[in-house]
């Protein structure tokens, strides 16, 4: 027997003469897990980072999230009403898109930003491709990218707020004051007349290591001999890692609380909606790039040292801390757990997902290190989403019984519709 169709045996003559009554429609059993469940469970998982965001960014975050979710649902409803196409799978995916969009937005944005982002997410990201199951790029990221391009100054100010410990959940993030000698979040009382600290984002501080005409740092954790006293140590300027773990650091609503994101990831992997290989591939490849890619440090006087392999350059302690800072600051975890795992826009096979994840992590880390774009890992995911169809057709697992090394398949004359005839 062979798969070569030109040599396939014709059906025995009596088979055509006997009428076939029924085509079977087996199986008659189905698992009780409709597609809507997938989206609802993902929404539940996404509520963890959202709640953390509400705690650390107060009621303005709640308004931004509500605006994003409601406008996603309204835009989807309006689009399908206007175009007379049925909305597939109800509106659960629209709610999910709005929720994910809310997680990526900063908490202090004006009211029109989430609405515009939702319009872009639903119309440009999803509906014009044909809705659920057909889009190429993750819709929430399309919305986030659109507002990042339209309002660059609003979306990426130099100082970002985070509520003070005694103003959690009820404070106003826009009432923020810059802090002198900010060390760690829990040690600080609220500044007088304000609810929030205005701080540079950790990613901005780390960005000084790889770009900029004048490197600000003379070392990661140890200062070289005869370094000028006005050049600082990079890791000394960062808040402690624990702040990044539980989310008391400036950033998007759902981006900062690493613990909530990791718990959500564990839940989604347990439910089987996310394969562990994809987020792990993203995080590991980003870590590998960060551990190897060169950073620029100020030496004595005006000279600039280019240090490769920062993981080992100043001992593994400082190197590991540096890599952890790079991984836990910014939106890497949210992108790896919620954005890259959007089912429609990621490859289908496990191997394809690993390729996709390595691409996301590498592209995102390089964008973060050397181009200083505001949302590097989101752009990495969007960039790799573009290649999803290519990865799907390129990566083919070996079918049962297929030879390990095979000749190219024989050329077959093309014919039109084969199913109908």
């Amino acid at each position, binding site marked *: *027997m*062979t*798969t070569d*169709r*030109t040599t*396939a*045996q*014709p059906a025995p003559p*009596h088979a055509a003469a*006997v*009428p*076939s*009554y*029924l*085509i*079977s*429609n*087996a*199986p*008659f*059993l*189905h*698992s*009780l*897990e*409709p*597609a809507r*469940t*997938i989206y609802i469970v993902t929404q539940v998982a996404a509520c963890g980072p959202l709640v953390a965001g509400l705690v650390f960014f107060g009621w303005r975050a709640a308004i931004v999230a509500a605006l994003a979710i409601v406008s996603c649902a309204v835009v989807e409803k309006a689009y399908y009403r206007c175009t007379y196409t049925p909305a*597939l*799978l109800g509106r659960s995916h629209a709610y999910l898109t709005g929720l994910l969009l809310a997680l990526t937005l900063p908490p202090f944005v004006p009211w029109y930003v989430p609405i515009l982002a939702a319009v872009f997410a639903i119309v440009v990201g999803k509906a014009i491709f044909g*809705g*659920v*199951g*057909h889009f190429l790029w993750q819709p929430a990221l399309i919305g986030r990218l659109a507002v990042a391009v339209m309002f660059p100054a609003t979306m990426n100010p130099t100082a970002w707020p985070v509520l003070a410990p005694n103003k959690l959940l009820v404070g106003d993030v826009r009432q923020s004051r810059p802090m002198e000698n900010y060390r760690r979040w829990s040690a600080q009382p609220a500044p007088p007349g304000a609810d929030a600290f205005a701080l540079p984002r950790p990613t901005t501080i780390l960005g000084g290591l790889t770009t900029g005409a004048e490197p600000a740092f003379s070392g990661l954790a140890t200062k070289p001999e005869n370094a000028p006293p006005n050049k600082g140590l990079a890791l000394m300027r960062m808040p402690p890692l624990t702040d990044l773990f539980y989310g008391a650091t400036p950033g998007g609503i759902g981006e900062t609380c690493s613990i909530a994101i990791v718990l959500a990831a564990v839940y989604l992997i347990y439910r*089987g*909606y996310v394969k562990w290989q994809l987020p792990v591939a993203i995080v590991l490849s980003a870590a590998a790039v960060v551990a190897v890619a060169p950073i620029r440090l100020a030496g004595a006087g005006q000279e600039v040292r280019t240090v490769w392999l920062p993981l080992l350059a100043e001992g593994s302690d400082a190197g590991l801390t540096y890599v952890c800072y790079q991984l836990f600051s910014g939106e890497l975890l949210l992108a790896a757990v919620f954005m890259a795992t959007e*089912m*429609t826009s*990621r490859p*289908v*096979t*496990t191997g394809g997902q690993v390729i996709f994840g390595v691409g996301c992590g590498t592209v995102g880390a390089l964008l973060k290190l050397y181009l200083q774009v505001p949302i590097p890992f989101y752009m990495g995911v969007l960039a790799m989403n573009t290649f999803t169809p290519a990865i*799907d*057709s390129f990566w083919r*697992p*070996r*079918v*049962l*019984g*297929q030879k390990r090394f095979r000749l190219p*398949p024989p050329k*077959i*004359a*093309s*014919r039109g*519709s*084969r*199913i*109908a005839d």
Partner: protein
Amino acid sequence: MLRRCYGTFTGGIDLPDQKSATLNRSITPAPRPSRLLVPLGPCGGPTAKPLVAPGQAVEAGQMLARAAGGDAMDVFAPLAGKVASLDAVAAVAGPYGFLANAAIELTDLGECPAPASPATHENWIDCPTDALMQQLRQGGLTTHRRPVEPLATWLNKAAATRCDVLIANAVEGQPYVTADHRLLTEHGADVVAGLVILARVLGITKVLLAVDYRRTGSYQSLAQAAHSWDVATIALPHKYPIGADAVLVHLLARRQVPPGGTATDVAAAVIDPASCCAVFRWIVYKQRATHRVVTVAGEQAGRHENFWTPLGYPCAELARRTAPSEAGAARAPSASVVEPIIHGGPMVGLRCHAMAVVTPATNALLAIDEAPQASPTTCIRCGWCTDHCPARLNVAILNDDFELSRVNHACRLRVAACVECGVCSYVCPARLPLTERVKQLKQAAARPLPVEGT
């Protein structure tokens, strides 16, 4: 019971077992039928030539029709009765659906017997191999699973490819079905002896009997016989579809069936226990294979039994006798040609035609609670079909190929390797009929190209 570590396979799924209703019900005679429609071609192929006339009384085991040649087989009367007509039509299960087949209608039937084990039996151990082979070819035996083929054909294929391993596939991984399990429990020694007869005829020394490890406690009598005949009994994990031929051969013989091929292509012969039992009963007791075990089960069935059923028993009647409401079921045949009964296991079975009869392939008739047919939505590319495919096919891409009619592309993805287990449809959260689509692609790919210029 030997339980070696044979590993497992990529893909597959744990199905709910749901066999408790009939698992411990011993094989009982079927209720007396009002009529039998004995198909003249139980394999769905060419039919035999009738030897009887309408009105004639026949004995149980009497020859009703003689093979005219080719693949046709002799047909025997399962029960004593009277020939009512010669031009009845019965629907027999073919590879992709029910096929119309000419049948002999028998009425005024006697009671169905229980599977008897007469005291007089032939000594087959001292019988020369050639004589055994001759007897097997004359027995009118078939294999007992879909697609049904004459045992002589199966033997010829296995001999022609010089098979060196014989596997009896008693895994029975589908929910509800317990026919093979009961056969092994009550007639385990017969099954093993039948398997040994086939192995001797084919000259195979490596003989395996694969069973489900959760059922091994019931097979004590079988273990003794298997030990004395040097048949390796292997308990396999419960993971559907471990009983698919390609998967079973891959696990037990470490050979991969080429896409579109069968197990004999890699010199492995796979047989089912019902056929082994039929071989034993024919060789030793000289009883024709005119009955088989049929599990009648399902939430909607009033009775849950393993019936020793004569071939040609109308499926609707066997299941209707056990249906809870007599009036509702009686209306069904006139209202539609489709019965709410499933022929075979729920994962690979067929929906019963009104004229369907029990053939050697009928291991179960199920009246199960079917969820109301949710309309399929669009594929969201979750990839579960691809993850669970035992043949490691990329079913999500094959679904695209179906929607775009890209048969050549599907060929390149080796669609012929599909084992038609139904797992992709089972897990699909969008309720797409993926198994159906892949089967159609497979058939389209197997169809020869038209000659150029026609």
